[in-house]
């Protein structure tokens, strides 16, 4: 591995962080030193074999902070064209190069800025929440993230404030051979409302890069929080991401993970329902082709009583791609009155694709309603035939069917402006415009 303890110390010094941040980084680094690259003998990684994928941490160097300070034209155009946003954070490699927040929201006390800046400017609240949800001790990648995070987003919505238009972070990889570690810390206070959108892209790069990000969401009592991640990296990027959400009493918390890009993508999405009466929706959508390997882990953690969680992950696979879904519903002993559902559906479009599915339950309370289902199937020839009799060519008929398959998930997105971005991104991928070698960006 090319990352070192010196990287951690230099990074912290360059960012002029308070001492406690460096201490947290170094604690995580100790775990890095004790960890090995996960392998198939570890249940949580059994279908992702880094030897077979020819992956190692050797070729990456840390994207140094404060190297890039300007937003590119492409990024600027995208920001302008994407539609209305309550605010933006744009990160290039290790640095946030652009941040803006509508004056209206700022006036109501909403805070949006790079996490680098927030650890200094809003030290108290960041210190209170940072790494309370994302823990470095899960595995090597979590520990690496907690040691080397930079750039990132801090978003704070005060009590009772309703943010009606989405706030967005964009992460760009502009340079090959690097590792970036964006961290988002989202704190939504009691009764507040927010939809937060993260988008991951890369420009064409000549060699492999690694993106190892995390999102922490702390949803206060009776808050409404929506989180959407759209990952469209090019085929040179190895993507690791954790999304750790915590919901207090009567919170409504929704997440949607759309994964289209990357040579490899491993995403771990966890919602801890800590308070009573949490309503949680977890959605996922993925389309893998051209040798892509996607690995999803979800965790519906029912800690408080009378919570409801509903999970639906749908994916399509083409060419020699491979996808792994494993999901856990855990109902703790005191989580009486739990309703928990979990569904994973896979549509296999090629003879060389592989889909693994592991929907798991651990139920430690009897007052529950719990079910899960998983399926793997192919396209229905009769549906294709029907469309073809209507004069639609086969490739287009197949696209229509895949689109229909995804609609069940996309249709649940409540914000039109986000739904449109997602539909465009899916269309882009379905029409074969994503390039595995990464010669084209988003």
């Amino acid at each position, binding site marked *: 591995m090319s990352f070192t303890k010196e990287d951690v110390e230099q990074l912290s010094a360059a960012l002029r962080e308070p001492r406690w941040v460096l201490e947290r980084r170094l604690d995580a680094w100790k775990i890095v030193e004790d960890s090995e690259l996960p392998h198939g*003998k570890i*249940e949580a990684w059994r*279908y992702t074999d880094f030897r077979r994928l020819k992956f190692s941490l050797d070729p990456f160097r840390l994207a140094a902070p404060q190297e890039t300070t300007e937003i590119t034209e492409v990024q600027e155009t995208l920001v302008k064209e994407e539609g209305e946003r309550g605010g933006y954070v744009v990160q290039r490699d290790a640095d946030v190069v652009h941040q803006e927040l509508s004056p209206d929201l700022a006036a109501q006390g909403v805070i949006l800025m790079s996490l680098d800046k927030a650890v200094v400017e809003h030290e108290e609240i960041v210190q209170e929440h940072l790494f309370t949800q994302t823990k470095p001790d899960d595995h090597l990648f979590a520990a690496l993230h907690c040691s080397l995070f930079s750039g990132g987003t801090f978003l704070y919505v005060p009590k009772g404030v309703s943010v009606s238009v989405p706030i967005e972070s964009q992460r760009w990889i502009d340079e090959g051979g690097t590792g970036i570690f964006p961290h988002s810390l989202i704190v939504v206070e009691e009764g507040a409302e927010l939809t937060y959108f993260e988008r991951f892209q890369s420009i064409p790069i000549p060699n492999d890069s690694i993106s190892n990000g995390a999102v922490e969401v702390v949803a206060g009592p009776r808050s409404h929080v929506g989180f959407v991640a759209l990952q469209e990296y090019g085929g040179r990027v190895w993507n690791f991401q954790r999304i750790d959400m915590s919901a207090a009493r009567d919170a409504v918390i929704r997440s949607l993970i759309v994964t289209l890009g990357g040579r490899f993508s491993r995403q771990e999405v966890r919602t801890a329902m800590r308070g009573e009466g949490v309503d949680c929706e977890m959605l996922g959508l993925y389309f893998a082709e051209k040798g892509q390997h996607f690995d999803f882990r979800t965790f519906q953690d029912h800690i408080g009583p009378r919570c409801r969680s509903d999970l639906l992950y749908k994916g399509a696979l083409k060419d020699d791609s491979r996808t792994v879904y494993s999901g856990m519903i855990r109902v703790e*002993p005191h989580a*009486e009155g739990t309703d928990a559902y979990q569904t994973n559906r*896979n549509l*296999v*479009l*090629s*003879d*060389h*694709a*592989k*889909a*693994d*599915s*592991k*929907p*798991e*339950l*651990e*139920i*430690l*309370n*009897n*007052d*529950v*309603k*719990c*079910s*899960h*289902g*998983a*399926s*793997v*199937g*192919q396209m229905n020839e009769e549906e294709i035939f029907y469309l073809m009799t209507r004069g639609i060519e086969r490739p287009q008929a197949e696209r229509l069917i895949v689109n229909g398959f995804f609609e069940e998930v996309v249709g649940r997105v409540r914000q039109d402006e986000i739904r449109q971005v997602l539909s465009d991104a899916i269309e882009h991928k379905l029409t074969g415009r994503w390039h595995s070698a990464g010669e084209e960006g988003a």
Partner: protein
Amino acid sequence: MATDRIDPVLTENEEVRRLKEGYKYGWHDEVSYAEKPERGVSHSVIDQISDRKNEPDWMRKFRHKSLDYFNRRPMPWWATADLSGIDFDNIYYYIKPTGQVKNWEDMPPEIRDTWDKLGIPEAEKNYLGGVSAQYDSESVYHSTKKELEDIGVIFTDMDTAVREYPDLVKEYWGTIIPPNDNKFAALNSAVWSGGSFIWVPEGVSVDIPLQAYFRINQENMGQFERTLIICEPGSWVHYVEGCSAPVYSSDSLHSAVVEIIVKDHARARYTTIQNWSNNVYNLVTKRAVAHENATMEWIDGNLGSKVTMKYPAVVLKGKGAKGEVLSVAYAGEGQHQDAGAKITHAAPYTQSTVVSKSISKDGGRAGYRGLVRIDDGATNAKSNVRCDALILDEHSRSDTYPSNEIEEETASVGHEATVSRVGDEQLFYLQSRGIDETEAMSLIVRGFIEPITKELPLEYSVELNRLIELQMEGSVG
């Protein structure tokens, strides 16, 4: 209302406890054992076993090699069950009761008494084909009805088979479950004793279920039986294995290996009702291979034991082969039932169905752990897995750990699971019809496992229902 219901369950009432103590499997007979060798397993113990059984050289070598595998293998790293209570060095690996007898009347009285309580002679008289009764490590009694011999079926204990049908045994032995398959299969391969051997000739249907009863009756004694069933093309056989054990204070280990070969167009069904006493570690490896258009069915009931880890497997090797696993698990106080199924689709047009029902109560933990794998090239394979769990009180636990590995585009695979408790509405409805709460509870639970019980031979299904009824006593208050 829900919380009101729970408290009385926490303490089992005296009545039920007495019933359980006196129930028909909870006794313990004094038995005079012909010999009692040292505890623990070693190459010298293996030589002792082999010498005593007068085994051919290949079997002796097989045992020694298996012991090396056993010593090298780690304990299963993935196990969620607590296996720390197994002390391999404190177990007798071979015990030979009095020699084999030809008639029931010649059986030692204590043993006959045991069987009488199990109702064997009546069953034998009425409709059981043959009884291969294993008392501890070796078959003490074995009868095969003349009609079986007439149609050419071989049904004997495994020790006899090694002596009398060496070529047949050697051809298939260890081919489905090689000794290095897992730690416990390796242990069984090293120290196996007893079990059944069945060979059904081509085109022959055995209309009556073949049965064997197993008991563990020596404290700290392992039971390592080995069963091999071969169904020649177009044949059909149903084998029934039932276990019960007297209650002992220290832990026992039961680790069987069952291998089944189902050739083209043949069908085999293997039914187990496991009711070991609550100190037994029941770690069993069962696997069958189904060839072209063959059907393999595992029906598996796990009621007793401290820990059961058992995942009957079917390898669907021939085109059009079918595999089915129906299982029911009950985990009461201190019990962990980690049961499941493993299906590998290795040929086109293969089909599999898994139905798993589990019940946990009084702090018990019941789970399903299973794998469905569709190999690349196994075109048009279909698989459906359904797991339902009932949790009867707030201290009990249910786990579901299924895994689907799909490498074939044309596959159709479905997995569904539900976990629930007995609904208040269900109970209320039955009570409104004049059925008291306990009976209503029992009815619901029996209804829940009905898809399995209806597949059992009559006396087993009656017995299973009776056991469930007994367990349900005092579950509502």
